[in-house]
């Protein structure tokens, strides 16, 4: 494997990884190309209703940065996303939906890091993890960087977060 030089690592800055343009572009590409649906950036923060089932799909980032790329959706939005990707109508949360959300998040993480050349070589992705439930909180250490954006997909909303530390 090609070694990443100190110069390359040193050039990864917080301002670069927190530039939301990269995340917006990654989201637009993944949803446009793989789901065939447009998404729209929204200002509102994604909020969970107390009783709403929520899904959080996560990809671990390792190497030049340690962190997580996470997508948060309500269950009905997740079902809609997975249905768009599969090209079929899905009726509830099942293995297909969990698989689809994991893959969408995997592609988001991959597309995001590919836009930052220094990360594309030096950052590796884990296999996906998807958490489902109601009224849960994802705890994390105070990250050195955080980029968070919310989007509208038809009548649904979702949030994507990338956070962690730079080594």
């Amino acid at each position, binding site marked *: *494997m*090609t070694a990443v030089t100190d110069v390359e690592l040193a050039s990864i800055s917080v301002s670069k990884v927190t530039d939301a343009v990269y995340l917006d572009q990654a989201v637009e*590409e*993944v949803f*446009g*190309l*793989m789901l065939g649906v447009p998404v729209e950036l929204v200002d509102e923060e994604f909020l969970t209703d107390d009783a709403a089932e929520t899904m959080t799909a996560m990809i671990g980032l390792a190497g030049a940065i340690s962190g997580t790329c996470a997508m948060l959706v309500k269950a009905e939005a997740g079902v809609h996303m*997975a249905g768009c*990707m*599969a*090209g079929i109508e899905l009726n509830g949360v099942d*293995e*297909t939906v969990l*698989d*689809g959300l*994991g*893959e969408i998040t*995997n*592609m988001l*993480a*991959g*597309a995001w890091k*590919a836009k930052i050349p220094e990360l*594309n*070589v030096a950052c*590796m*992705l884990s*296999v996906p993890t998807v958490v489902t439930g109601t009224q849960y909180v994802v705890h994390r250490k105070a990250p050195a960087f955080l980029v968070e954006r919310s989007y509208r997909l038809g009548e649904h909303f979702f949030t994507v977060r990338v956070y962690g530390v730079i080594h």
Partner: protein
Amino acid sequence: MKVLIVDDSAMMRKVVERALRQAGMNLTEVIQANNGVEALAMLRESASSNAAFDLIFSDINMPMMDGLEFIEKRKQEGLALGVPVVMITTEGSTPNVMRALAAGARGYICKPFTTDQVKACVTPLLNVA
């Protein structure tokens, strides 16, 4: 055309198959494997039964045995060496591409992808295979 699609995600296997069909490929048989271990077993079986694949698509990031190790072992064992292998992955970094090509991959597609990209990658491989 008989195709082997290797990916730990059933969703992605479905998406790849759909992209191949939309690209105009005449798929007569689609065999699926969850990881490199299963894929190697299928190549050994196809070799013994003389039922060769025409094309292999493989993800890289998979449990048990990843896609790079799969095509390296395929090369070591001399399995389906004449069959074009296309890697299809989110890991589009240069070292991964170089390692895949060194192990015998003939194409490399990064997710997310378009049907046109799949067609542009696969068509020349089938014409010369």
